[in-house]
């Protein structure tokens, strides 16, 4: 009972943290007006400068930080639980790099200008292909090492093709945008991009949450899970489609943001106990908090420089992850 209460406390705390960071994301920006002005601008119906900035620049940015962070945290937790591999994460498995490639093809061929849905759909298709490919390359047993190696190969291949496609574009600006697709950014997005990605992300989340019971059962072993009436095929479909849809749509509008999906589940696992189903909501909230915080940091550290958000997540995430490996060496292996 105390464990359950602790879990409720944790979720409440994380929700509060996310709410605070969401407000911070709405109120921090280069335009520099006060908290009160920002809030009244958010709900005002006049077409003043502050209302415009709040509704068309900061609101989509904060909403995307919230939903993309949740997507990354959630899919990291699901992949780690499903593959029973502590390194499983959309970034390391090549899902984000492949989704970037799909988005790059959609945008730079002009396809997305003709037909806006082409952007999330193509990103989704490529992320789906990468998950299937990694799964196939790693073999049925899903051994730790082969999955990660396959992910590394897919990531570098997708990254190379992305860079090639952008370099070959007749527009020299495209080559400079390699940075965006590899490190990600939430700067100057619009509500249109949010509405384009949000339905796909929400659909992905429902699939991922639907896999929770199966993930719990699988902690006692595949055979035991099957005897409990869990179909491995259904679970696999839920996980693959869930990750591909949500991460594909997220990457299509933000570029590839690394480390959130890797670090957040590890950070929260000791706090929620062993059950994957409990880790999922906590990781979604944790991922949202981390990405919102990183996006606020980007604006505070270098407001005029358009610092890429992946720089911040890696700068914070990587040392933390090294420390985590050091602390839990034995458990990780």
């Amino acid at each position, binding site marked *: 009972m105390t464990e359950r209460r602790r879990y409720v406390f944790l979720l409440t705390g994380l929700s509060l943290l996310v709410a605070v960071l969401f407000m911070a994301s709405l109120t921090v920006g280069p335009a520099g007006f006060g908290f009160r002005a920002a809030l009244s601008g958010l709900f005002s119906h006049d077409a003043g400068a502050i209302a415009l900035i709040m509704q068309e620049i900061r609101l989509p940015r904060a909403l995307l930080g919230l939903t993309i962070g949740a997507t990354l945290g959630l899919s990291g937790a699901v992949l780690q639980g499903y593959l029973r591999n502590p390194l499983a994460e959309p970034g390391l498995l090549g899902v984000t790099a492949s989704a970037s490639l799909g988005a790059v093809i959609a945008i730079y061929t002009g396809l997305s200008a003709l037909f806006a849905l082409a952007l999330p759909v193509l990103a989704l298709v490529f992320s789906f292909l990468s998950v299937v490919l990694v799964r196939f390359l790693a073999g049925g047993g899903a051994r730790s090492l082969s999955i990660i190696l396959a992910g590394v190969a897919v990531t570098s291949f997708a990254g190379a093709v992305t860079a090639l496609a952008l370099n070959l574009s007749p527009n020299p600006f495209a080559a*400079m945008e390699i940075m965006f697709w590899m490190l990600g950014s939430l700067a100057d997005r619009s509500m249109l991009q949010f509405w384009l990605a949000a339905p796909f992300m929400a659909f992905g989340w429902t699939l991922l949450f639907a896999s929770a019971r199966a993930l719990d059962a699988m902690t006692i072993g595949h055979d035991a899970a099957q005897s409990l009436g869990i179909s491995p095929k259904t679970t696999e479909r839920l996980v693959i489609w869930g990750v591909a849809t949500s991460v594909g749509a997220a990457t299509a509008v933000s570029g590839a943001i690394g480390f959130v999906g890797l670090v957040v589940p590890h950070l929260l696992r000791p706090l929620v106990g062993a059950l994957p189903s409990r880790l999922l909501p906590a990781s979604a909230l944790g991922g949202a908090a981390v990405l919102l915080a990183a996006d606020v940091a980007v604006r505070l550290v270098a407001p005029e420089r358009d610092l890429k958000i992946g720089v911040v997540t890696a700068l914070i995430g990587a040392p933390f992850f090294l420390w985590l490996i050091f602390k839990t060496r034995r458990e990780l292996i």
Partner: protein
Amino acid sequence: MLRSALSARNLLKLASLCAGLLPVLPVSGPAFANHESFAPARVVSINLCTDQMAMLLAGDSQLVSVSNLAADPAVSAMADEARRYTLNHGLAEEVFLMKPDLVLAGSYTTRETVNLLKRLGIPVAEFDPEASFEDVRENILRMGHLLGHEQAAGSLVAEMDETLAALTAAPASHETAALYFANGYTSGEGTLAGDLVARAGLENIGISAGIDGLGRLPLERLVMAAPDVIIGGGSGYDAPALAEASFAHPAFRAAAAKAELVDLPSRLTICGGPFNLAAVARLKHRAAAGGLPDKGDTASRFSDWELRSGNAP
């Protein structure tokens, strides 16, 4: 506008990606060619800005080759002229094979090529990017001296001075203006584009925002500043890139709807030359002639720079 998209941190990247023939941030640089005293016979230019100055001043068959960017109407005001020359890509090997007795280069781009050519004993004259109209005058005079056409350079500068004086004779309007290029870049203090805006009698909000050189003007700041005039336009390339997305952003559109939007092709402000005056004329006469320079005034000789290159609006 290409130039405006550059910043110190992606400079190296761009330089290596597109053979780096573009001018970059203004700082001082040394290195004059050894024999400026007698006119060279085979001149090769490997920088967009020296390309255009050389095409303006070089004698018949004196200029052998210009860079491929000079033939790109998105960045070059003299793209048609450039097509008459052999195009190079700023690579040491191809330049060496042309057996030049003078190579013209920018002082911040194609560094490896310049170093290699110097080691091979080929005289290289390096030109600093212009940060003001004064710099443009100096560079043109120096180019005239290097090519042995001092007189042509002198009369071109005199003509430009005269045109500028005529253009700036009308009182300045002191309206606020924001330069807003692809990727949300703007030109502030110490930039040629900024100087041209100031000479057209407008107050550049990039300078009041404290932007030194080239820098990003966050969309939020643009909306807050609510300038009277927004000077910008796309990159001039047809192929899509995210760099153009800022012009489609609802917040930019709302700000642009309240301001006067002037399309200023980047080829008129990237490099120094008489086409800079077409830019000033366009900024000065935007209201009178619906954004196009007035054909009837003294700027007419220079305003057709816009029409000569391929994709004039």
